[in-house]
């Protein structure tokens, strides 16, 4: 059976939240709320996480990895290149001065951490993203969108639920 997309726009988080709850509660066949439903909103909405249930975020592991690798790399780079300095030593200082190298190690700790954070964001959030099948610019302005993917047969039920919770606008894919 072919799957179809439906985008419903809501005026407020409250109504969208209710609609999501009801969709979850309805346990429709061929419609998994965790995978077939995407919420779009103009602002960050930690409250919705409770509606969705916990969804893990893994971005924070990227900077951890990046910082450790960056630190190690820079310390070895700086110390290794200083090892060339035996013919051009600085009077009064060891050729490989550890506290001094830590200053730069710390800088790269942050630089590589920041790079990897952004990389993590791109990987985890799927950026740069392709435009989803149904899109309305209003979801970035002042409305909340719920994009559902479901069997054609289930679609009227879903639509009914969404309408009940005052969805103000629907977008549907052209029928196949």
């Amino acid at each position, binding site marked *: 059976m072919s799957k179809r997309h439906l985008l419903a726009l809501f*005026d*407020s*988080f*409250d*109504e969208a*939240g*209710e609609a999501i*709850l009801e969709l979850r509660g309805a346990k429709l066949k061929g419609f998994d709320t965790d995978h077939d439903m*995407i*919420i*779009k*909103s*103009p*602002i*960050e*909405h*930690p*409250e919705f996480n*409770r509606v*969705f249930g916990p*969804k893990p*975020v893994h*971005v*924070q592991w990227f900077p951890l990895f990046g910082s450790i690798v960056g630190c190690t790399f820079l310390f070895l*780079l*700086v110390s290794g*290149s*200083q090892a060339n*300095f035996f013919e051009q030593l*600085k009077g009064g200082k060891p050729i490989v001065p550890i506290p*001094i*190298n830590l*200053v*730069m190690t710390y*800088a790269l700790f*942050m*630089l590589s*951490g*920041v790079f990897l*954070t*952004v990389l*993590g*964001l791109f990987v*985890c*959030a*799927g*950026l*740069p*993203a*392709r*435009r*989803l099948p149904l*899109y309305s*610019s209003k*979801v*970035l*302005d*002042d*409305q909340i969108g719920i*994009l559902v993917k479901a069997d054609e047969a289930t679609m009227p039920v879903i639509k009914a639920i969404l309408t009940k919770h005052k969805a103000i606008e629907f977008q549907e894919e052209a029928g196949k």
Partner: protein
Amino acid sequence: MKIKSDTFIRNPKDLWKGEPEHTEVRDLSPHIGFNQITSDVVNSLENPRPIYWWAIAICIAMVGVGVACEVHQYKTGLGVSNKSNTNVWGVYIASFIFWVGVSHAGTLLSALLHLTHSDWRKSVFRYAEAMTTFALMTAGLFVIVHLGRLWQVYYVMPYPNERGIWPNFQSPLVWDMFVIGTYLTCSSIFLYTGMIPDLAVFRDNIHDGWRKKLYTFLAMGWQGTDRQWRNFRVAYLTLSVYLIILAVSGHSVVSSDFAMSQQPGWHITSFPPYFVVGALYSGNAALITVFIILRYMFRYEEYLNMDVLRKLVRLTFALAMIWTYLHFIEMATVWYGHDQAAKDQLIFKATGVYAGWWWLFNFLAVVCPWVMAFRRWQTNLPVQMVLSLLLNVGMWLERWLIVAPTLGHSHYPWTFDFDQWPSYIQWGILFGSFGWFGLLLLVFCKVFPAVSMYELKELAYARKVELRHAHAEEGHGRPELATKGAH
């Protein structure tokens, strides 16, 4: 406080547990709705007040002056800046520290206040972050301008090269290169990452021309889905943490240029915190200046409002007082530490040829901020405009009076040299740097969202939640919908 709205949510225990995210909502008018924020910011790209174009013209003229001076200096040699073998540094290094200092306020507002959930920052942090990036770009110019052979500045870069040599990693200037480079890179990344949701709004609201292409490219297909927001929130938080430690380590390393040296008046242990707080202080003063300018120029009166200004002024005053404390501590450690050369240096500052400037700086940076303590002046725009400029004059003088007197009055009396007044070349390049900074900032504000739309919407949303909540407590039943604003 708890949200007691059981009229329309079936399982309040499961859903709306805990505290609302935002409780402080007085920083934005409650009458502003989501789409008004969108339309105001999008419109600000198109119709700034005419003074904007005058400002652009003035900035370009200032840059022209700076470039002309630099070209002359480049062709003739650094001697035209009227330094000497005793006074080898001068306005350039002082301005370098000054501009790095200006950059710090942006990080304070966008990163530190983000972590502490200080919501009043939401309307000002974007341009503050832009100031961070541009101030660092300006500061970087001064390092290059100050070099004798600036065409070989790449010698400082650590990369395996055909010369077979590495930079000297023991030098604080190389640490500067590392840390300022890192800071510039990271603050630009932070600025851009925080802007992605707003760029997507621009992409959707602007329908043709180069802007459409630019925003489409930069927005990276942001659609505000829950997955994007979820990861964005964590990534942004992580970036803020990195930015805070970067800002602190950044100016600490700049202070090591002096603290790591042996010269009297530079070799002071308390320099790193002194520099960092001084940076936050002068940066905040610069924020107030830009606040007032942008507010008028881009018609941001609703967002850059008096309530936010008051908080900004109070923050500046608090920083000014911390800085004042560290300033006196610095003098006290020199005085009671009884290192004779350093003590002579301090006496020289207060009584020697720089005395006039030194007392002026003390007046401007220590006494003047007390005006900010008075409530009636806190939101007086002309007063704050003049005051913030004066504070920055004072803080520039502070940096100059760290650099110049020590060089002229060092360990070796034979080489004392007090007659090196910087030539018009140095002043011209300093003047040009303000134009360069202003130009970058003005262009940025015209092309990118100078106030953050999505953060303001969060603020507006929090405001509505609180209102609804107040209504519910008064027994008015279901209030108006949260996201729909009156116009």
